[in-house]
């Protein structure tokens, strides 16, 4: 048993020291943003309130932590150092001179490094899944709100169908190794992942259809880039072999997008129904613009305020969903360092050891808190206009 430990103060100083790339990056970004806040539009206005500054700082903190994870973390998240099983915080690893700042877990891995690497998983999946959910929800919500009638009735019924599913039941049914075998996630992914391509295709087509040369370039770019990513993700058939995704991660991704798209759909539909009665929409209709041009270039830009706020909240919500998945051991590998899985492992042993539970708990909470504060500050700012 290693007996050499360092004190609480040394742990705090050591941890702060490990985060050095984050502090430097934060200092640069915040100083620049604060100096030029007058020219940065909505983002710059965030620096006018304490809540906004706190939100931006926390979000950037976790973003940079995820980016520099390999520099910050002293150990590999999966490496086990046998003597360090359930080590108390601040135990020095024999022969290496490095410290387990937050102690070791029951499999003798460094809790601190796992927390740092866990941020990577969360910060990749949560924003990406939210972006997809936003695009799927928008693409379906715009016509539902704009046309109304039968399209609206059908799409709303489908959205309510998914919303009536308790999230946890949906996950238990959709995120299992058995489901991956049947190829169902790949099929859902093929439907979902085509939506952004259609979305951007329509977006540029409606705007630039009178300028065929520019349009041809844009379309070619969308089809080549989008098709490449699409082939890689949905069919696992990237011709260059660069883009591929683990089937289990795809399964999680699809489940999360599936669970949060109907919420976006409802918001976009409501906003569209409100905005379509405005004069500028009537003007565009009189000009003879096509419905999709009106939806994408007249209505959507004017709905961006509430949508940005919703996106912030939704990333936080998605983070919570990912944690729920990890907590129930669904989808992610058992040794995965993500926060939910870490909380699950640690909470079973809470009676004997509490130190492995606290870092992932605090990490998840602060990240979601940062996003919520950001959303709150954005909402305040958009109300001022």
């Amino acid at each position: 048993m290693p007996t050499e430990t360092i004190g609480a103060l040394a742990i705090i100083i050591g941890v702060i020291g490990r985060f050095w790339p984050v502090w430097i990056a934060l200092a640069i970004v915040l100083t620049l943003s604060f100096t030029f806040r007058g020219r940065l539009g909505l983002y710059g206005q965030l620096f006018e309130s304490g809540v906004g500054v706190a939100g931006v700082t926390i979000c950037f903190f976790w973003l940079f932590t995820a980016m520099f994870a390999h520099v910050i973390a002293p150990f590999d998240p999966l490496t086990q150092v046998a003597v360090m099983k359930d080590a108390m915080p601040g135990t020095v690893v024999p022969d290496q001179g490095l410290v387990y700042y937050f102690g070791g877990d029951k499999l003798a891995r460094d809790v601190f490094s796992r927390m740092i690497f866990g941020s990577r998983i969360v910060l990749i999946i949560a924003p990406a899944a939210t972006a997809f959910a936003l695009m799927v929800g928008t693409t379906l919500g715009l016509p539902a709100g704009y046309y109304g009638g039968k399209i609206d009735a059908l799409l709303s019924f489908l959205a309510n169908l998914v919303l009536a599913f308790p999230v946890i039941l949906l996950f238990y049914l959709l995120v299992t190794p058995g489901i991956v075998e049947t190829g169902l996630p790949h099929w859902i992914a093929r439907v979902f992942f085509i939506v952004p391509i259609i979305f951007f295709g329509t977006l540029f087509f409606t705007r630039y259809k009178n300028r065929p040369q520019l349009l041809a370039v844009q379309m070619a770019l969308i089809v080549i880039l989008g098709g490449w990513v699409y082939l890689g993700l949905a069919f696992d058939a990237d011709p260059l072999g660069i883009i591929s995704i683990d089937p289990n991660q795809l399964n999680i991704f699809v489940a999360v997008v599936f669970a949060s798209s109907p919420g976006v759909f409802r918001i976009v539909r409501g906003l569209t129904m409100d905005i379509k009665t405005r004069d500028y929409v009537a003007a565009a209709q009189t000009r003879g613009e096509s419905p999709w041009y009106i939806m994408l270039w007249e209505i959507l830009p004017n709905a961006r305020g509430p949508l940005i706020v919703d996106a912030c909240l939704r990333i936080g919500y998605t983070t919570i969903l990912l944690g729920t998945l990890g907590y129930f051991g669904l989808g992610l590998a058992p040794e995965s360092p993500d926060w939910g899985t870490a909380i699950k492992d640690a909470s079973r042993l809470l009676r004997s050891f509490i130190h492995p539970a606290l870092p992932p708990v605090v990490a998840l909470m602060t990240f979601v808190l940062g996003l919520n504060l950001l959303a709150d500050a954005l909402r305040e700012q958009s109300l001022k206009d």
Partner: protein
Amino acid sequence: MLAFIFRRLSTMLLTMLCLTLIVFYMINLEPNLKKLAISQLDMRTPAEQLESWLEKNGYRQNFFVRYGQWLGVVQKQPAIDPATGNAVPRFRYCNEPTEPHYGGILQGDFGCSTKFKVPVAQKLFPALGSTGILMFWVMATMVPISLLIGILAGMREGSRTDRTLSVASITTTATPEYVSGVIFSVIFASWLGWLNGSAASATNQGITFYNFTLPVMTMAIYGIGYIARMTRASMVEVMTQQYIRTARLKGLSFGSVVVKHALRNALIAPFTVIMLQFPWLLTGVVIVETMFRYQGFGFTLVEAAGNNDIDLLLGCSLVSVFVVLFTQLISDIGYAYLNPRIRVQ
């Protein structure tokens, strides 16, 4: 109003039908049936025996026939013992009749739980009762606290109380159950030792403050922030209305304006929000009951899903979908009832 309720009820039935069909499809996918057969027999059973078990118990019949049997519109056939040629019940522990019969949801028969080896109704309804008790205490703490926080914060917009309470409620919305559960357990069970970190004893020995506070606290905290924010927003809006200014100008004290004039109008929006909070509470129930080992609905759902217990899982989804849709209906009706402007339209 009656026509409205009737229309909503029929949509509700259609939704339930669609959802159970989807759930039925997903739990009858091949890997899931295999999982069921393995859990019923043995890990090392050869593939042919698994197949014959599935065949014998009717899992290989046509998908729609089986869905119809579960609904109760198609007759359930008993299994035939190949040795004697006699009809035998499929699951002995459920007292299934040996002659063809209609036995489905429409007849009030929820089927047979393969995991707990009892009829689903015998397992599901006591579990729902336990969860009902938990829900009651959660609501009894969550609603008054959150309304109070919301009203105090929204009463004077922008004041120090408002800002402090707002940040506090944002913090609680950032704390999902599995986070607050761990934090509370660490503080109250591990460090202070005031409360029990497990509610397992609540099922047999009855509820005490010692074993039940942590689950209730954990579940309530996540909802408090959300409802408080909604109450605050609606209170802020009401406080800027003309009739509040009139009441103030005619010399009423601030306290009595808040209680007599603002409160009733400010509580319409939170009512809807509280009702729509139920679906989320359902997820919370699953997390909290797993975390604190309380044998309620959530615990049953996790067990059913883990073992692919088909009938029990269908029963659980039926109940949860019903809860979600029914609370939506109540919230719509209640909203119309509380807000006269909607009723006239």
